[in-house]
């Protein structure tokens, strides 16, 4: 094998090896399960070494020579369908692999501390490595089918990790829900794959994208649309997003890795990869943009009303993913990818920070139990928190940095990526197709940006500022603050690293117009130039002053959101302020709080009717009608037999009678 092939095989193979070592040893040897430092080391290196290799490949990547293809072996070869287990290293897959293995390494490190008391430590790390393996297959695959393998593979790992504490039925419900909603999307994806194969006879990205003229207009529409449906499952968009908030039942480091930084961005990756096809169908692009913007605002409004620290972050993730889809729909593939990267940094940081908080709150609960106090409270409820900044300075500072980043305050990472999305949406408003719609979407996105800044600061202020509420709220928890503590360094190192990235991450995509204004070359946007061979971006046509105006306006919106949040939640008065919003918005607030009743809607219109129909109609039909018919046939035969037996009497005279009758009949026939 050539050296790149070996390296790619290592990137893919090491996480798999880690999974096998920890998984098989842990399953069969009881004593292995307690060797936590060994397990943790294996699992961490299984991700960290691939990260180093990816960095090496990234630094040595020659854009002019094009993508590196690494074929391991032939997977499928039948009837003209040939698919290899083969990987493609190019600008897009490298960026994604850096995020996945980089953020993945940090979260693996964090998990050593976070999961240290869990008896399923070995299993957790085995699953986590399996996830990295599946995710790398998804992003490095050079064909759609291998991508699909990774796509469902990450879904499996998500299922296993959400239901990690499976003795809790609610958690295993959440796991099942995640898998099934994803399956609905996967069904659409699968049909898209069939259509592609029918049109070009190959599932290889290079072949598909080189033969776009082999598709009819209708085919392009349907393929793009169905793939997008697939993406709404994996990337939690309307109508399939409801699984993601429930997915928070998993350990927090899983929420950070899978349900914020990596897996849920697969849909964005897929559409970016297929972007040359998407730009051929403005109709689908508009659908994508509308769904994205709608998801963004729907999730943001729900986030305002939540009390669960992870719940707020979950809806925030859905909302930010909505922003990314808006970007995709606006032909801003680079901006979408940019937001994937910055979001991975700040959202992973936020989730890990929330994990650190939950860790400490659980510690408080355990300590109180040790003291013989029968105290039960929800360690994730922000109404029990407050004032934590005194006790957990590192967690607080990193959480705050990430919050500023997601709120879109310059010059932190989220500002640049979100601004670019807004700008491209506005730009599409001047385009030929459905311009007015894009203006509207820009408005929706701007409102959402305001809400984002608002609810994120509501969360941060309520959690870390003010006074610690638990002792007042819960009986028996007096003086509980003495048990609050900062998390160990295996947890704070990843926090600080991610916070650092949340500060500087935006600099890879500073808009070119800033350079142009000051007479520069106009190519300071490193990410845009790097990714341009892959992403079929629709170019910006706005004038430089217009771009400045938009950027300043976006900043003002974010600042307004932060200001409002400080005014309402800065003085330790979360409950009063929540009530104020509730009375201001009335019924609307109820709708937000009840999450638009989507779960109930799906349960009521699809799930229950199907189960009831199957149970009361089909199962009965099977027994009574189909099997009843079979039994009826048997019954008729039996009846005929029981009638005929009267002829078979065994009495000789009867037989003689019938014999004579027969003879007479035959003779009469012969004679007449």
């Amino acid at each position, binding site marked *: 094998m050539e050296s790149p092939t070996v390296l790619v095989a290592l990137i893919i193979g090491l996480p798999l090896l880690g999974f096998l070592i920890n998984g098989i040893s842990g*399953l*069969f040897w009881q004593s292995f399960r307690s060797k936590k430092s060994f397990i943790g080391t294996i699992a961490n290196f299984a991700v960290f070494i691939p990260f180093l290799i990816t960095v090496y490949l990234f630094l040595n990547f020659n854009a002019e020579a094009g993508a590196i293809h690494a074929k391991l*072996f*032939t*997977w*499928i*070869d*039948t*009837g*003209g*369908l040939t698919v290899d*287990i083969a990987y493609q290293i190019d600008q897009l897959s490298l960026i994604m692999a850096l995020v996945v293995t980089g953020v993945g390494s940090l979260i693996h490190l964090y998990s050593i501390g976070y999961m240290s008391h869990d008896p399923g430590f070995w299993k957790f790390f085995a699953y986590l490595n399996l996830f990295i393996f599946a995710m790398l297959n998804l992003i490095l695959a050079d064909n759609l*089918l291998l991508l*699909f*393998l990774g*796509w*469902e*593979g990450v879904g*499996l790992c998500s*299922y296993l990790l959400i*239901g990690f504490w*499976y*003795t*809790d*039925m609610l958690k*295993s*419900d959440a796991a*099942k829900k995640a*898998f*099934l909603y994803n*399956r*609905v999307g*996967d*069904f659409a994806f*699968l*049909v898209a*794959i*069939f*259509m592609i*194969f*029918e049109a070009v006879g190959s599932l290889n990205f290079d072949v598909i994208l080189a033969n776009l003229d082999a598709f009819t207009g209708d085919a392009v529409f349907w393929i793009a649309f169905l793939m997008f449906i697939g993406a709404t499952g994996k990337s939690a968009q309307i109508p399939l997003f409801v699984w993601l908030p429930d997915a928070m039942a998993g350990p927090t480091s899983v929420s950070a890795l899978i349900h914020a930084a990596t897996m849920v961005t697969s849909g964005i990756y897929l559409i970016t990869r297929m972007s040359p096809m998407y730009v051929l169908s403005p109709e689908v692009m508009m659908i994508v943009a509308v769904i994205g913007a709608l998801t963004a605002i729907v999730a943001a409004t729900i986030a305002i009303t939540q009390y669960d620290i992870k719940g707020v972050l979950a809806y925030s993730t859905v909302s930010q993913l909505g922003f990314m889809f808006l970007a995709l729909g606006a032909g801003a593939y680079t901006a979408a990818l940019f937001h994937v990267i910055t979001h991975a940094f700040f959202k992973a940081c936020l989730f890990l920070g929330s994990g650190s908080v939950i860790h400490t709150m659980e510690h408080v609960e355990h300590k109180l139990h040790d003291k013989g106090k029968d105290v039960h409270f929800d360690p994730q409820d922000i109404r029990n928190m407050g004032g934590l900044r005194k006790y957990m300075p590192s967690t607080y500072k990193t959480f705050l940095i990430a919050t500023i980043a997601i709120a879109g305050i310059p010059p932190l990472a989220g500002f640049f990526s979100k601004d670019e999305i807004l700008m491209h949406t506005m730009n599409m408003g001047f385009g030929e197709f459905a311009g007015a719609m894009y203006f509207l979407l820009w408005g929706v996105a701007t409102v959402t940006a305001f809400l984002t800044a608002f609810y994120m600061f509501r969360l941060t202020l309520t959690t870390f500022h003010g006074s610690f509420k638990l002792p007042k709220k819960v009986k028996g928890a007096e003086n509980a603050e003495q048990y609050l503590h900062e998390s160990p360094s295996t947890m704070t190192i990843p926090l600080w690293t991610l916070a650092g990235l949340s500060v500087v991450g935006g600099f890879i995509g500073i808009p070119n117009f800033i350079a142009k204004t000051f007479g520069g070359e106009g190519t300071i946007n490193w990410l845009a130039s790097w990714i341009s061979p892959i992403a079929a971006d629709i170019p910006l046509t706005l004038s430089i002053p217009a771009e400045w105006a938009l950027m300043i306006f976006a900043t003002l919106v974010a600042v307004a959101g932060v200001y409002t949040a400080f005014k309402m939640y800065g003085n330790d008065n979360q409950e009063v302020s929540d009530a104020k919003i509730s009375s201001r918005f009335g019924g609307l607030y109820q709708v937000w709080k009840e999450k638009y009743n989507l779960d109930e809607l799906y349960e009521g219109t699809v799930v229950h009717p*199907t*189960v009831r*129909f*199957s*149970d009361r109609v*089909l*199962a009965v039909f*099977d027994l009574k009608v*189909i*099997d009843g018919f*079979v039994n009826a046939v*048997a019954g008729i035969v039996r009846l005929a037999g029981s009638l005929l037996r009267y002829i078979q009497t065994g009495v000789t005279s009867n037989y003689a009678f019938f014999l004579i009758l027969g003879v007479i009949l035959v003779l009469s026939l012969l004679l007449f």
Partner: protein
Amino acid sequence: MEFLLNLTIYFPLLGVLAFLFLKGDNAVKWTSLVVTSITFLLSLPLLFNFDVAGSATPQFVTEGSPILSGLDIKYLVGLDGLSLLLFMLTTLFGPIVILASWNSVKKSLVGYYSMLLILQTASLGVFASLDLVVFYVFFELSLIPMYFLIGIWGGSDKVRATIKFFIYTLVGSLIMLVALIYLGYNAGAATGVYQFTADWRFISSPEYTIGLVEQTWLFLAFALAFCIKVPLFPFHTWLPYAHTEAPTAGSVVLAAIMLKLGTYGLIRVCMTAFPNAFMEFAPWMATLAVIGIIYGALVAMVQKDVKKLVAYSSVSHLGFVVLGIFAFNTIAVQGAIIQMINHGLSTGALFLIVGMIYDRRHTRMIADFGGIAKKMPVFAVMFMIATLASIGLPGLNGFIGEFFILNGSFFSELYANKAYAVIAALGVILAAVYMLWMYQRVMFGPITNKENEKLIDLNGREIGLLVPLVIFMVWIGIRPVDFTKYSEEWVDTYITLSEEKSITVIENTSKEDIPNWTARFYNIDENQSEYRLAHQGK
């Protein structure tokens, strides 16, 4: 090699003979295990020496002389691309079902293991026989041991289940026998040498064609027998009964091997001998298949008995196989063949797993379980892998089969309608629903039933018999080429042959010679040259 093939088929009977001289339960069990293991080992050289490029021609052929002059009914066995993998699957399952019965069967062991061994020979015989009369004899022979396995070693309602299973399949078989006799005389006349021939090599060859009217009736008769065996919706109601009442080994053989006799027959006989009828009936069969996929899944979803659930899931899975067969292109038929193997592996494993939990708890009701994963981690993992294989997770075997079948059906010219594949693909969602829901209720949550506290995890024997199945699930999932290569040439060849044959038949038919309904059904116009042009153009 020819001798080895025969030895493999009949070797299990040697065990039955040995039982005459054996005393003691252990001797019977060990003899059965050794005999089936040797059978498996004996079959391996067949696999290794199989000529992949020539898989369209039967290999290792033993050909007897006709039993009566004029009647070309003869002992004729051999393996080709279609039968090889199913033959290997059967030998693989031999030792597995013996091990699965090890501690769970306690009454009249000699009888029980004799039945399993005879069943093994009968199943191997069906897949290897190339003379349709011999095929029929083995096909029927396989019913008898299964009849006793369910009827004697079965559950509480075993007699009813046995009778339903036996008579239902027998009705189909007898109709097939009538058709077989007609076919034999018809083919015999075509040879010009014999009065009667049942040599599949001749019947499937391009020299022999059958008129449209005869094809229609023959197809229907054969297809009915095979569809009952599959079982295709709406002929499936014997299956849940038989499965729930059968002992574990019986269910495993039934699911893994015997149901395949139906789908195997559809390809072996219906596709190659009656191509016109096959092609015209394809949309109808596909409709039943698709109904079966969805219907089987929905009914499976609401079952309260784990074994019944798996039985209904078989109806759904075999719907996929039938859909693939009638899609009549290489990808789909290849998918159908590999899916037969897959279903054998994953459903076989699921029945084994249900059996293991039944041995411990003597119940199969989902409601009696819950939280078992905590007590039986190894069991949980095995069960999970089999579940995932069954719901078609990429990377495991089930996906490969389903993907081939759906993809091939999607652009099948016979179906000429995307709806078949699209609706069938919904079955993939439903499969996840009923399997994961069942898995959750059995394995997850807190332990609510005290009985389950006492459960102990799998022992070495149980792990040992599941591990080979798991290995093949993963192997087929990531390197299906190692398996599909055996049938590739066969499928290609016979699809082309059958298609050409159907054109020949149409070209030689004129409207006047056939009844009106036939002409309408097969779209026969006055002018056959148009048909020819249309088909050559593509």
